[in-house]
């Protein structure tokens, strides 16, 4: 595994104002994620797991501190620049799949490619490859409502990898699935990490899911408490 740092969080603070009260999620958090790593983040509800994932994914900005990706700061980027950065570098996998209900599997997977300059033919080839990777090449025409939860999550994985991002951010990717299906999904993520070199950060409540990762970071009250495995 390469030791090159992909993500570097330095002295990151995140505070919210709720009514008259100021709530601090992180206060001077430091963290590094290396290229090609598979990191699981665990912790109780309210520990800041999802907020951390949002900061890594550039969907939320820190109150202070620095967030660097590939040695470039992303905490100073504008909303439009961040959108472009996400499109180029990040694949997202959500707990509830978040597929577009009116689009079939093919069109759902194609979505991130609409942000590129690829031709229709090139997009079709990439979508076919992504669907093949998750074993759903024969379900391309199926609507999300016609697929099981596991199949929908595999479509979501295909959507996340179709634009060949460097990093996959997974928010409870198996939280809505039964054990067997969850294991299939986690095996796919492991495959993407080992065979395709994707860096993966996965937030989970499930210790069994965390076992698929190379490292597990435990968050509690906005701080990393121990590192397992």
């Amino acid at each position, binding site marked *: 595994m390469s030791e090159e740092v992909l993500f570097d969080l330095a002295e990151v603070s995140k505070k919210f104002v709720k009514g008259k009260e100021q709530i601090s999620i992180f206060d001077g958090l430091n963290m590094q994620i290396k290229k090609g790593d598979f990191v699981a983040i665990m912790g109780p509800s309210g520990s800041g797991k999802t907020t951390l994932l949002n900061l890594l994914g550039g969907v939320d900005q820190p109150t202070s501190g620095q967030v660097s990706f590939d040695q470039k700061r992303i905490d100073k980027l504008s909303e439009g620049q961040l959108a*472009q950065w996400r499109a180029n570098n990040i694949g997202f996998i959500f707990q509830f799949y978040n597929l577009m209900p009116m689009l079939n599997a093919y069109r759902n997977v194609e*979505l991130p490619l609409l942000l590129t300059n690829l031709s229709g033919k090139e997009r079709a080839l990439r979508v076919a490859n992504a669907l093949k990777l998750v074993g759903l090449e024969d379900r391309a025409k199926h609507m999300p409502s016609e697929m099981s939860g596991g199949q929908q999550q595999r479509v979501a994985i295909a959507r996340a990898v179709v634009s060949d991002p460097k990093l996959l951010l997974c928010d409870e990717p198996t939280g809505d699935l039964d054990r067997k299906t969850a294991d299939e999904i986690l095996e796919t993520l492991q495959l993407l990490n080992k065979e395709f070199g994707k860096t993966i950060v996965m937030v989970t409540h499930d210790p069994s899911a965390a076992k698929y990762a190379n490292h597990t970071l435990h968050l509690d009250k906005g701080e990393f408490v121990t590192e397992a495995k």
Partner: protein
Amino acid sequence: MKDLYLVYKNLTRKKLRLFLTCFAIFIAFLIFGAITALQGALNSGVEMSADNRLITVNKINFTQPLPFSYVNKVKSVEGVKDVSYANWFGGFYQEAANQVVTMAVDPDTYFTVYDELVIPEEQLVQWQSNRRGVLVGERIAKSFNWKVGDTIPMSSNIFTNKDGTQTWQLQIDGIFGAQDQKTDTGYIVFHYKYFMETQTWGGDNVGWLILTTTDSALNEQVSDAIDINFANSAAETETSSEAAFNKAFIEQIGNIGLIIFGVVFMAFFTILIVVGNTMVLAIRERTNEIAVLKTLGFSSIRIFKMILIESCLLSFIGGLLGLGAAFVIVKGASEAMARFLPNLVLDQGIVLQALGYMLLLGLVTGIVPAIRALRLNIVSGFKGA
């Protein structure tokens, strides 16, 4: 262009809602197209009026006659260029259902004051020398398939012929058209003298005077001079511009412009509320999806544009269908009522106006949800869902 498929799928995701919303817009533009065409037809007489043409009628009511002697008196008023006169006949052809606007006019001056009418010189000369002759407008000739040389029986529902009938046998000496297609040619004119000599009511009267001024700037001065001249006489006059006269004639039904504005305004206001509400709800339902799109890297401005395109598409689908239906209805009505509303047509101006309203409706109904989507914070979007 790549986003159009996404816009299309969003638009068609709830087919019943799409149908109902489009139907509401369809009705609004159907009303707009049909009513605006009707307004155009009613106003065409006003629009086509000459600037320097005045009409003098009896002050009591325009159905009351004026003494024939007024013709020469008006001619002598300073600023008057030409004077002609006419009398209403109240005609129909063969049967009462075939109403034909028929007037007894002065053959020597009528086409001088209505110089926008076009007729071959030889036909005009022939008519002027034939006291039983009649000139028919292009539109009415086409409607009854009349040709030069035909003898047509024209009956009156007001006057009686000295032969005891109510019918006059008239010979078509010519067919007149107009320089502008919108000018009404759906009527016929025959000799005033012949009419007065053959009808039983007698009297040395005319229905109204038509006069032109040497300069339209003199219209008011000439009108006042004429009306003052006949003040306190047995037949006081009221002189107005032809446009004002035609407008007043139409407005006997009511203030057409206000009625039409009211109907169209209510239709559009209702549609604005219905479509605006539908768009707001439709986009609110998609808060989670918008957050997902933003997460994937779709910029806020791109999503903003997609929503505006969607609302405009919705407006154009319903609007164009409604305008198409209005076109068919107006075309059908125009053929059925060619003699009464000769200029009933859904013209280019109405189409352009409607397209403008469709765009406006699309933008107005889409702008609120589009701004909400533009401002949507991804984290809040997911929490909202």
